[in-house]
């Protein structure tokens, strides 16, 4: 068939089509890479302000000093003080949220009726929707007095009660995502276990949980990120006292509560005190990044292969 006119017309429309497709693909690519730009921007902002900070404060001091008093006359910049507060409160939160979230997830996915699940899950997710400032006062005015009644020596501000309430707040994140992962386990696997004569708990613990492990790990990691990054609860209930401690029964400041404190305060921009929040933010970012990379590796290693 030699129809030059028809063919050249087809070629013309084809070129137009290919061009349009490329343009669209490029735009979609831009949208996807926006996330990379966001990260770069975050890193840029944090690093550029931190550079000025580290010109004043040697990195070694930053990492090894045991005091954090950047705004005082006698300034010390030992970030470990804030890191310890952050880690202790996160550990307390996770010690509550991980078992509780996992148990709830197993219960909802393997034990409860669909009716209960459909009803309880969104309600539980509401826990994640309550403004964290409300939790802050809940910790301070409700949980702390109860804990003080149990442990008379407990000070009015402490990491324990802030951490526990933070744990409650994270429970829905852990429970909901883990439950999604468990429900994604094919029914065939579950039925295979039941057909062997296993009970619900055996099926849940020995078959469903391992099969959903990578999803559950992702839920834990997100929970950790939430805990490490939580701000208002700690700002209200943990005492904001820069205190290098690994004891949850003491008041302490965390990275986030320090940042929000400075953001609310009377500090002039450009001062060394102001730059500390970026150095602290950078530390926070690095900590969460570490956990996320860990999570990524876990997921890679245990990717669902059912």
């Amino acid at each position: 068939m030699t129809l030059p006119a028809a063919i050249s017309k087809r070629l013309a429309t084809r070129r137009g089509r290919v061009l349009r497709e490329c343009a669209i693909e490029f735009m979609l690519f831009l949208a996807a890479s926006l996330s990379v730009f966001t990260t770069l921007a975050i890193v840029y902002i944090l690093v550029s302000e931190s550079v000025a900070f580290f010109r004043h404060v040697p990195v070694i001091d930053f990492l090894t000093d045991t005091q954090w008093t950047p705004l005082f006359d006698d300034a010390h910049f030992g970030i470990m003080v804030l890191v310890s507060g952050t880690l202790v409160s996160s550990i307390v939160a996770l010690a509550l949220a991980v078992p509780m979230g996992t148990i709830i997830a197993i219960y909802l996915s393997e034990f409860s009726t669909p009716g209960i699940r459909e009803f309880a899950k969104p309600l539980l997710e509401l826990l994640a929707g309550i403004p964290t400032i409300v939790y802050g006062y809940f910790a301070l005015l409700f949980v702390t007095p109860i804990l003080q009644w149990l442990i008379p020596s407990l000070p009015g501000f402490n990491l324990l009660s802030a951490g526990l309430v933070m744990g409650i707040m994270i429970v829905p994140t852990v429970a909901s995502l883990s439950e999604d992962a468990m429900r994604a386990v094919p029914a065939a696997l579950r039925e295979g276990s039941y057909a062997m004569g296993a009970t619900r708990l055996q099926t849940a613990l020995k078959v469903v949980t391992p099969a959903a492990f990578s999803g559950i790990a992702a839920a834990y990691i997100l929970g950790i990120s939430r805990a490490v990054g939580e701000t208002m609860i700690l700002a209200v209930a943990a005492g904001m006292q820069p205190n290098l401690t690994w004891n949850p029964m003491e008041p302490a400041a965390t990275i986030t509560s320090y940042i929000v404190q400075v953001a609310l305060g009377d500090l002039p921009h450009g001062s060394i005190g102001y730059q500390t929040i970026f150095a602290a933010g950078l530390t926070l970012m690095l900590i969460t990044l570490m956990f996320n990379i860990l999570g990524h590796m876990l997921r890679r290693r245990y990717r669902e292969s059912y």
Partner: protein
Amino acid sequence: MDAPRVREIRSVIARGKRWDVVFAIVGIVCLMIGLLTVAALFVDMAVKGLPRISLEFFTNFPSRRAESAGILSAWVGSTLVMVVTAVTAVPIGAAAGVYLEEYAPRNWMTDVIEINITNLAGVPSIVYGLLALGLFVYQFGLGQSVLAAGLTLALLILPVVIVATREAIRAIPAAMREGSYALGATQWQTVRYHILPYSMPGILTGVIIGLARAIGETAPIITIGALTFIAFLPSPPFQPEPPFLSFEWLFAPFTVMPIQMFNWTSRPEAAFQVNAAAAGFILVLMTLAMNGLAIWLRYRLRRNINW
């Protein structure tokens, strides 16, 4: 089966079932702790805040007198910020999700983007606040405007939207895609006529869940410095005279619900704690309504399209 073996097996089963029951009870207790906390917080706010909730509470501006203070500028501000957030996050998030599921080649660049998105989902919201302060407020000179806050929260919920989009797209069977391509559709036609429409309920669910989270965010908004007394509304987007549409509101100063609540909680007068509870109650109702909408959408999705 012989009798001893039967007895033995029965006792094993009985033991297993006992553990089932124990676990079920533990599960219910855990669930109850969670649900009771929600209920307690909710009821507490309701009991404290209800006396203040009236029509005036919604139509009054904030005031130094607790009884006449209202949340007009706050809920309008929240709504406008959410509109900006949704309008930016939905197209960008959906586009990014579509790119990653439908277009992205398997190479290191895609890997980088994917790791990035999971990582961004875990970045503390206060870090977004720092980003917005440096980038939107100062670099772009947007100031403490509706636009700056909306964009900040859009960045914050973008990972949620992208993940929801990808899940929704993944649920579409390959047969749909192949059916479309086999008829000679281009990739974009396939996306436009199939992928996007079929995943839309899932995308919207993700967006709403993201927005429900964003609407309660305090820290990043405080960081951009929007802790402000505002007793007026931005100019409305619809004007009586041509060109009828106005985007002035994008650059207007604003306040939002959690900020208003935060402001009230830190007042000396006890009467303001009532306002704070009332504002908190309404904020939770807003998230509740959004989550409800998301659940309804999810339900619709399941009922209408059954692969």
